[in-house]
């Protein structure tokens, strides 16, 4: 039993924080919004150069063969800068899915290429038009199609750094890759959404803290008043008790049992609730400034809103936790317990 990150993982997180912090600053956000765009080729080149797109790919597919915990650390830092590029969807969900179905697929040989993924739970697809290909679901099968093989309709979202599309497609005009593990795709996506939620939340708190130290009212910094302190302390508490859940979910995701799914769902709910609490507190602490486009707090609120409802709503994820709680033993000796075969059989009968 060891609940710490390895030295390599801690270094990895620092690398991600530095790279993304340097290449995705408030200045970058503003310039992208002025261009009505959400990408920066220089930043993407650095992300690719540092291997972030290869983390979850197996070594035989040219990847680094690392685990979800390693990628979750990148996702957390991506949340901290509200990263607009589809690093998480492509390298965290779609590429490993493609590698599992077709390890020799030529798309995997180009680390710069992004792959979009249309999961049945999501009505829209992120950055579908720029993707080298889109993974689509029908009857449990995964199909692969290029953007010019499908009909894309742009959909406006409140998040100015997120680009969404509805996708219509014909199975005749796509490559059938066979039965795919859509549940694993969902687990990974929900886990990495949770990790981003931690980053979004911490950035919202950090921004508000900086502002509250500077902004003076009644002759004192507003951060010296308890009402302001307590908003931010409560948000920090929510972050502190979401982070270990995200880390544990990342470490356990490979077990693929009802406990592992429940923990991913717990992570998604807790981290995005922390982000909701933190981003709203951040806007409140910034006062009227927080309600203005000029202050960046709204970007974090909007990304939180988007991630909260994608890859399974809170109700969807709560039902997965209930499935664990009401079909498996609960109690203090069960924190890290795994589903037994007998328990799994019982659950199948209950659900049948």
């Amino acid at each position, binding site marked *: 039993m060891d609940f710490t990150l390895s030295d390599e993982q801690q270094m990895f997180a620092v690398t991600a924080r530095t790279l993304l912090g340097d290449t995705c600053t408030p200045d970058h956000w503003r310039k992208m919004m002025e261009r009505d765009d959400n990408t920066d080729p220089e930043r993407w080149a650095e992300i690719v150069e540092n291997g972030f797109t290869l983390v979850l790919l197996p070594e035989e597919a040219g990847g680094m063969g690392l685990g979800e915990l390693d990628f979750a650390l990148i996702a957390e830092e991506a949340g901290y800068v509200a990263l607009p590029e589809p690093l998480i969807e492509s390298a965290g969900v779609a590429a490993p899915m493609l590698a599992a179905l077709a390890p020799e697929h030529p798309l995997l040989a180009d680390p710069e290429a992004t792959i979009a993924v249309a999961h049945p739970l999501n009505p829209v697809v992120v950055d579908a038009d720029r993707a080298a290909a889109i993974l689509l679901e029908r009857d449990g099968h995964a199909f692969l199609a290029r953007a010019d093989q499908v009909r894309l309709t742009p959909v406006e979202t409140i998040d100015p750094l997120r680009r969404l599309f509805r996708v219509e497609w014909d199975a005749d005009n796509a490559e059938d890759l066979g039965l795919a593990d859509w549940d694993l795709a969902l687990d990974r996506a929900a886990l990495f959404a949770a990790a981003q939620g931690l980053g979004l939340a911490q950035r919202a708190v950090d921004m508000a803290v900086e502002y509250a130290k500077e902004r003076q009212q009644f002759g004192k910094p507003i951060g010296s008043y308890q009402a302001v302190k307590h908003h931010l302390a409560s948000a920090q508490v929510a972050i502190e008790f979401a982070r270990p859940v995200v880390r544990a979910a990342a470490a356990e995701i490979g077990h693929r049992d009802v406990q592992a799914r429940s923990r991913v769902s717990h992570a998604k709910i807790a981290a995005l609730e922390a982000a909701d609490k933190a981003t709203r507190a951040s806007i409140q602490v910034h006062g009227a400034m927080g309600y203005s486009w000029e202050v960046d707090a709204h970007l974090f609120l909007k990304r939180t809103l988007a991630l909260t409802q994608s890859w399974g709503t809170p109700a969807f994820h709560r039902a997965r936790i209930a499935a664990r709680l009401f079909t498996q033993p609960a*109690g203090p000796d069960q924190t890290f317990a795994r589903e037994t075969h007998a328990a799994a059989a019982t659950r199948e009968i209950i659900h049948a």
Partner: protein
Amino acid sequence: MDLSYTPEQQAFRAEVRAWLEAHVPAEPLEHFDATREGFEAHREWEGTLKSGDWGMVTWPKEYGGRGLDLIEWLIFEEEYYRAGAPGRVNQNGIFLLGPTLIEFGTPEQKQRFLPPMASGEEIWAQAWSEPQAGSDLAGVRATAVRDGDDYVLNGHKIWSSRAVFADWAFGLFREPGTERHKGMSLIFFPLDAPGVTVNAIRKINGHVGFAEIFLEDVRVPAFNRLGDEGQGWHICMATAGFERGLMLRSPARYQVAAAALAGLWQDHKQDADPVLEADVVRAFMNADAYALSIYQTASRLMAGAKIGPEASTNKIFWSELDIHLHQTALSILGPKAELVVQPGEHDWLDDYIFALAGPIYAGSNEIQRNIIAERMLGLPR
């Protein structure tokens, strides 16, 4: 990161489980704050624990412990709560003062005080708060005047848990003329010493579990001072770090309650408001999140880290989850919620009333939020 138990840890769990199954009293003991009999029954249980060397498993062997690490401590606690073993009447001693004594005490002090603490022969109360020094603990006015090899103690302490029946107390006293954080010392005194008067205070659940203590020219040897003269504030903050950070409230306590809540829901969901299921699930999530956080903290401490201001987040989280969990139980019980239960039944009502104290004791949650804001986030005082 490896979230599985080693074969040794699994064997340890089995050993604890077997011992507890053989020794935990079949009938629940009367509460230690309710009557002298209940208190003494719990003292006897502490002696039984000691007979199996389970008094305080993390302490060094020479002081009555087993020298186990924090993960083993968590496993012990999980099994302890799972078995429904009696509450630890000496928690002020074993969980708060004990670790502080191990860090700051002289070898002679450790030898004198730790073994009878681990065995329950000496049960401890905390004597920090005063009528004018609650959240603002640096406002302590009780005095310790050095007289040869002794201190003479005077003052008025209050809200001292267990003090009605306990044997010893550890208190904060200041050198006359000193102010605020300076000049305070942490001094032990027997609660039956000449000049000590203990008056019970009834809690909202009717128990007499805390007390006010009057000290009039109480003479104790200077040997009873922990750490250097004037170092009391520093030592108290170390105790408070343990209290808020790790030892005061085991996650197992809430995981047992959350599992029981899931059972209560299964039994009552035909008649209860369906929206409550979300709260039952939430209670389970909160208890698990607290457990995961404590495993993370334990792992970090074992890797050489120290408890810092983030300890304050724990106290807020467990106290609030406890209230939410028990409020959910009472909502499920509906009109039966207010009914006092028969002995032996699960007492959700009394546990709810107890949970209400959580945001107040061990430093109010308002003070904890100030600590988080100032020391974790760096906001100005």
